């Protein structure tokens, strides 16, 4: 039984079948990648995983609870953190504040009226945030405006924000989309470091096959809305169906 269970999910848009009979199981403490060519239904699946889209049939269970129809903050409070295609951070706030907010959210829930306490006096949170920043080597940038960071640092900060919540599942939506080769490699390194340092469950939605081969424990290949195969990276590499799906796209 995986931590994230997708069962018999179907989704149609008008007459268009976006997803048909998708079954997926993400095991705890593993890195699971979902790859597929353009139009394979990756974004639709992602939107089902975060509750934004409700499938016509089927279920999406996380940690024994359905995620369907839940609001983003509820999804997060269930234990899913999300990394976006382009880093989403609080640009007007300092790097340190950026990291403190998710820790507050983890401790206090989706809303708390702590209007008369002082941020500076929350020793636990300050220490935890410092540890998180040290973890990604950004401690010396703590007082900078997040908007002034380089693109790579923004990605790093976003990752740190997500990890600071110690999520049960980290959801990454094409984390290297539109990146130069060097940035892509840096991101892969960062993810590998995270994987090596702690027990974590990651689910990566990716277009680029090469990104996930060094990272994933298991890979699901999606094509035309259906999972084609699910296996280890080594087996996927040589799989004829996968070749066909990707070559078919290239041709």
């Amino acid at each position, binding site marked *: 039984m995986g931590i994230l269970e997708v069962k018999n999910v179907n989704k149609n848009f008008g007459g268009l079948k976006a997803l048909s009979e998708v079954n997926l199981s993400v095991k705890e403490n593993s890195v699971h990648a979902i790859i597929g060519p353009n139009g394979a239904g990756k974004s639709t699946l992602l939107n089902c995983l975060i509750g934004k889209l409700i499938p016509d049939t089927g279920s999406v269970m996380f940690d024994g609870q359905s995620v369907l129809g839940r*609001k*983003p*903050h509820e*999804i*997060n*409070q269930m234990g899913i*953190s*999300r990394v*976006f295609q382009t880093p*989403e*951070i*609080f*640009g*007007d*706030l*300092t790097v340190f*504040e950026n990291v*403190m*907010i*998710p820790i*507050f*959210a*983890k401790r*206090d*829930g*989706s*809303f*708390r*009226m*702590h*209007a*008369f*306490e*002082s*941020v*500076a*006096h*929350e020793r636990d949170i300050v220490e935890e945030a410092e540890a998180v920043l040290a973890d990604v080597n950004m401690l010396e940038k703590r*007082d*900078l*405006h997040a908007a002034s960071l380089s693109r790579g640092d923004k990605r790093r900060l976003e990752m740190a*924000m997500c990890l600071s*919540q110690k999520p049960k599942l980290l959801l990454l939506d094409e984390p290297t989309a539109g990146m130069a080769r060097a940035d892509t490699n840096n991101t892969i390194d960062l993810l590998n470091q995270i994987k090596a340092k702690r027990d974590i469950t990651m689910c990566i939605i990716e277009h680029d096959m090469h990104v996930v081969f060094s990272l994933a424990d298991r890979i699901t290949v999606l094509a035309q809305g259906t999972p084609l195969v699910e296996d280890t990276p080594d087996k996927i590499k040589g799989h004829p169906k996968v070749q066909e799906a990707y070559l078919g796209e290239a041709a």
Partner: protein
Amino acid sequence: MLGLNTKDTWLLVIVALMTLFAPFLLNPFPANSSLAQFNAGYPDLMQRFVIFGIFAIGFNILFGLTGYLSFGHAAFLGVGSYAAVWMFKLLGYNVVPAIILSVIVGAVFALLIGFISLRRSGIYFSILTLAFAQMSFALAYSVLTPITNGETGLQVYTSDPQYFQRSGAPDIPHFFGLEMRATETLRMGGWSFDINAGYYLCAAVLLVAFYMAIRLFRSPFGMMLRAVKSNQQRLNYTGLNARPYTLAAFVISGMYAGLAGGLMASMDPLAGAERMQWTASGEVVLMTILGGAGTLIGPVLGAGFIKYFENIFSKINDGVLHGWFGFLPDGIENVLVTVVHPFVGKGWHLTLGLLFMLVVIFLPGGLVEGGQRIGKYVFRRRGRKAGGAEAEAARKQPAE
């Protein structure tokens, strides 16, 4: 001190000292000198400084932190005033219950209007708040006349019950016997200073309100509000629900507005619907932007600035202008008077509009940003060595 860091404590102390000595600071010119018209130390005006200061501080909690631009905040000020006058009519002239009720009523109205308006953001939110405020204004003028006394405005009549008005108590608003109107005039040489009870009550309330605002700005709650403004998408996916945060900010700022309305009625037991009109809402937007939205001291500065110049500018007439330029040859004098004339006296709003445009165009951070720029310029000229550290420090405190 009081749970504030050194810098904030200093800010509070400075504001406290300024409000405490305002009657002296604002009357720097001898009473019968020609410059006496620039004195602002009379009770009526000083009360308005602090009351609008409170109003603007509250507005800033919403607009400055969350970025939600409300164009209907005057409605809360208006209902606060009505609530206070009703307390005078029913209970008696003590201002304490009046002020308490005005805050509660402001909160209730803000909760109602905010609950609905905050379902939308951006310009739609502005239009919704505007629509609600205009509705309240129109209703106060027409159907609700039994409660608001329509165009005449709500006031206290001798026939009103005033159940708790004791026989010896003053027949005007008072604070446990201390009349709000009570003024002691100190004369020192050519100078005269008005020490007014109402002003000091308002000033005390302002200090409490300001202190609460500092605490709020430095609290996790304040940080979340700034996060709402910065990136709502990220906030949601971080597990925080933006709606209750913005609603709480809206209600708090509504309470500040209600408080300001209550104080206004306590200084002069009258409440009229025109206080709720959207131009009045525009005024508090102006004050906040002019002073510096999102900063602590900005709204207070903006409120003081606008109220001061409104009073002083609108008093300058052609006679005064001729007095100023009298030393010049007649031709030049007349030209100057003609040029300046449209901007002063009744033309004060023209100056205000121009000023407002200039600030939004060139100085989006308001007077506070202007001050910082001047400070930085002076600092850079004094020594380039330490400049980097200072710039860093300025960036550290975006909310200041």
